[in-house]
């Protein structure tokens, strides 16, 4: 029994491409507004901030796929790679905006920021950690790496935590918005610690209800 109507199979591929296209809309529209002088006030910072925020949103969306499947039986795993890659592209654009538009390639300042300012160090670490995940986000790597792929991609937990922390540490006062992101990431990561127990309980319950052996294999 699905909570949402099932998407016809022939639309699975196109729906993923639609997600990529939609995913780039915030960046593209903000870039257009910024480049044409229509972003209010400090246009560069607004753009930088927007890219960072969407990176965090896509990371959170990536982490939501598994709990949604566990709890509601809705399987959106086909979108997870797109969401993860969108998160990576947004982190990359966030960094490029900082490096090119904000700091205008003042490398001594950039290096000093990365080395000396904990929130920038953390953000930079998250970007670096995302690179191997982005590079292995393809079927060939999954086949090639086997079980090591799952292990490697658990790094996303560290990255999401770093992202939320980076946001909270960058603001003058930790207000409701960074709090919300910290809460969401905490919740999603906590789910991973109780997940195995929950799935066992769910399996046992359904085994009692209808004695058919459960064969579902759970992945990260």
């Amino acid at each position, binding site marked *: 029994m699905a909570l949402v109507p099932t998407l016809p199979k022939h639309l699975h591929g196109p729906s993923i491409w639609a997600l990529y296209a939609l995913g780039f809309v915030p960046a593209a529209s903000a870039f257009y507004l910024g480049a044409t002088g*229509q*972003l*209010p006030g*400090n246009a560069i910072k607004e753009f930088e901030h927007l890219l960072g925020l969407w990176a965090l949103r896509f990371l959170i969306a990536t982490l939501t796929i598994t709990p949604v499947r566990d709890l509601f039986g809705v399987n959106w795993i086909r979108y997870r790679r797109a969401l993860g890659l969108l998160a990576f592209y947004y982190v990359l654009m966030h960094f490029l905006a900082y490096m090119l538009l904000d700091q205008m390639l003042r490398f001594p300042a950039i290096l000093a920021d990365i080395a000396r300012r904990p929130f920038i160090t953390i953000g930079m670490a998250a970007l670096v950690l995302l690179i191997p995940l982005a590079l292995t986000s393809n079927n060939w790597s999954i086949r090639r790496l086997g079980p090591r792929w799952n292990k490697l991609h658990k790094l996303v937990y560290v990255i999401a935590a770093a992202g939320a922390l980076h946001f909270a540490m960058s603001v003058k006062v930790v207000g409701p918005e960074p709090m919300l992101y910290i809460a969401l990431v905490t919740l999603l990561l906590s789910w991973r610690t109780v997940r195995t127990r929950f799935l066992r309980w769910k399996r046992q319950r359904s085994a009692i209800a209808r004695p058919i052996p459960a064969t579902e294999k759970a992945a990260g």
Partner: protein
Amino acid sequence: MPSYRAPRIDASEITPERCFLDRRGFMAAAAGGLILGSATAGHAAALKASTGAYKVDEPLTPEKDVTSYNNFYEFGTGKGDPAANSASFKPEPWKVKVNGLVSKPREFGLEELLAFPLEERVYRMRCVEAWSMVIPWIGFPLAALLDEVEPLGSAKYVAFETVIRPDEMPGQSGYFQPLEWPYREGLRLDEARHPLTILSVGVYGKTLPNQNGAPVRLVVPWKYGFKGIKSIVRISLTETPPPCTWNLTAPDEYGFYANVNPAVDHPRWSQATEIRVGEGGFFGSNRRDTLPFNGYAEEVASLYAGMDLRANF
């Protein structure tokens, strides 16, 4: 002070405001009416002022940016919040109580404040967040007001307080309170009496919009913007350093003095450079070196002679 001496021209001529308005109209038309945040000056009324002696010789930050990109946490922590959430704030009638170590404590009504000889001053404004503007304020030297109340010899500091009105200031009500109210700031008496220090009652030829601190705010151009306390209701002279909101909130990040200083970084970001906010988006705004005392060293550095500015940040 030579670099700030202005040629004798009318306040209305300094600001090619029609050009900005024209441009805005053109942009709006070009974008098919699609334009973000058409923030206007609200209830601002025209205000007469003479041209002051202090005028930075740099292009003015467009009025649109000055009145739509603000830090005024009483109306919310977002830069656009003050313009968006301050419509119901009532800057009139208004009274400022001046008391403490003075021989003639009294209240000043808004009309009395507007009766001081008003001048236009074009100052740089450097926010602690490493962005800056060039703003044509209208106001009068704080020293003129202090003269009226006659500070006692024991007075060493001046304390300021912002109004508390949770009904009109959404940032002061609700679950999340970013700061402790009232917002408070302070200056040393000699800083307060410095000719550059003004109480501002207007900007861009008009009374202050609510989001800019209506009806009266402090402007201390050589200090970070947060020292420029807005919507002031109380000014007290004290013997001891008064509590300052940001200093209380994060003492390691915001000092009492908060003088603009490119050599002393904020713990979380560099203060060596700044982005000049302006129209022109990504390629019009530019990053420039921050100047010691925000470019006013010649006028104010002597106030801090012999002080360790790293310790007294």
